């Protein structure tokens, strides 16, 4: 059912990331809890894909599986045709939590360290890190420690750290979810600029429709758990938030998110 709703199936050779029948869950005291029943979609190179779904639908679990942090119960996750099961710098992750930076390293140290781990020389790593800190407007804070930064700055360091690794895919798990509305909007705009400048492929998880519309080329909508892909929606050529297309699309996503739930009626009323 999920595959049938893919509006633009991308041939395997052209897609960077392919998920096929991916089933995800974890063991609890009461047995197996399936969060994702069937995730099937593909991400092309340089595409910006936003995964959206109600809380608990397993979208973070899905991102962790793509990162290689957990294994699917069934199905395959392919990056560049290879089944990606081990974590690696080709799929750098930005998490939601502010504690994702190493507190004992400076801002610069946090960006340099993963580069050094991956075999770059000290000078090259430092130059590279500084370039990405400039890109994220953090060059002036290079020598500060994470606890001296605001939440928004910490997330920007995490983005710089991930991008400096030159990943094939940048994975982001609600990175702006804990920020205030103004900072969130500013970082969304900044992320759009940075992604455009670096040409990185983006897989972004959120539960906010507005965020999906601001950031995504296509939006993959998940149903509540045990979830499947409800629809993949192209949101590329929408106008600004004031346009009719935008509000129509927002209404459509709202309705898709309400599928399988009683809220469907309310969502229809909204349209």
């Amino acid at each position, binding site marked *: 059912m999920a595959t049938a709703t893919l509006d633009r199936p991308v041939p395997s050779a052209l897609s960077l990331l392919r998920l096929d029948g991916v089933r995800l869950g974890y063991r609890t005291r009461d047995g197996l809890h399936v969060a994702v029943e069937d995730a099937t979609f593909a991400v092309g190179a340089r595409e910006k894909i936003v995964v959206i779904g109600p809380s608990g639908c397993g979208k973070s679990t899905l991102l*962790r599986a793509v*990162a*290689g*942090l957990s294994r699917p119960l069934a199905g395959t996750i392919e990056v560049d045709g290879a089944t990606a099961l081990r*974590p*690696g*710098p080709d*799929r*750098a*992750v930005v*998490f939601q*939590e502010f*504690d*994702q*930076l*190493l*507190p*004992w390293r400076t801002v610069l140290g946090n960006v340099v*360290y*993963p580069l050094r*781990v*991956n075999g770059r020389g000290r000078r090259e790593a430092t130059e590279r890190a500084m370039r990405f800190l400039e890109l994220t407007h953090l060059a002036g804070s290079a020598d500060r*420690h*994470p*606890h*001296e930064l605001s939440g928004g700055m910490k997330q920007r360091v995490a983005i710089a750290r991930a991008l400096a*690794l030159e990943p094939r895919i940048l994975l982001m798990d609600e990175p702006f979810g804990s920020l205030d509305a103004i900072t969130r909007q500013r970082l969304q705009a900044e992320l759009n600029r940075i992604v455009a400048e670096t040409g990185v492929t983006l897989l972004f998880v959120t539960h906010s429709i507005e965020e999906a519309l601001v950031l995504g080329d296509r939006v993959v909508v998940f149903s509540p758990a045990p979830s499947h892909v409800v629809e993949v929606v192209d949101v590329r050529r929408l106008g600004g938030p004031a346009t009719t297309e935008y509000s129509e699309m927002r209404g459509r996503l709202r309705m898709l998110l309400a599928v399988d739930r009683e809220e469907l009626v309310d969502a229809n009323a909204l349209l």
Partner: protein
Amino acid sequence: MRTLSSSHWLRKALLLALLVGVWEAYVATSHISHLLFASPWQTAHAFASGWADGSLAGPTWTTLRILLEAFGIGLGVALGFTVLSALTTLGTDLLELLTAVFNPLPGVVVLPLAMLWFGIDTSAIVFTVAFATIWPIAINLSMGFRTVSQTIVAVGRTIGLSRLRIVTDVLIPAALPHAVAGLKTAWAFGWRTMIASELVFGVAGSKGGLGNYINNARLYFLTPRIFAGLVTIALLGVMFESVFGLAERVTVVRWGMKHS
């Protein structure tokens, strides 16, 4: 701590001078026997001459050497327990059980057993002090490892760290605040146990520590020396506290992992 002003230190110095003054006044006016209570002046004299002729330096050195040796052994054993508890569930249970039983024990209670096993020898003291240091270190280290943020471990994995480097580069520094707290407590326990052990049974051979020094002074009614020994112990205690405090300030406090 860093921001404390000079006026703060001045206040403390004045307070200390005042206390010494009260002490001096008490000795001068109460006509208490000098065999029972030494004046600040006598104490200072005994302290200075003790350090000058080596009769105080020797015991201090012995105490520190035994303490360091015991601390090293305690640290090693604690690390062993921590690794074991990090790797296996049985190890976790074992450590929990052992710390629940042994940590509340005052360290010096194993001294009689240690004397039975090792004889009247410094090894008995080393054993007793090591025993006192193991549990606070083990408890704090394993707590430190258990409370490391899962997010930074996940970050470590996604940037391509090996299992070993996750331990050395992520888990150990992340557990540092707990580790330092454990070392601090262990050092304090060890220090107390060390002096108490020596006071209880003196020492074998010619080389005694500070506890033994005080005990001997008591035997010969050299009361100023008892006071000089106490002052030495207090000064060393203050010194260790500041060393640990400094170590914390340049690491975990600077990194915002612990507030001063």
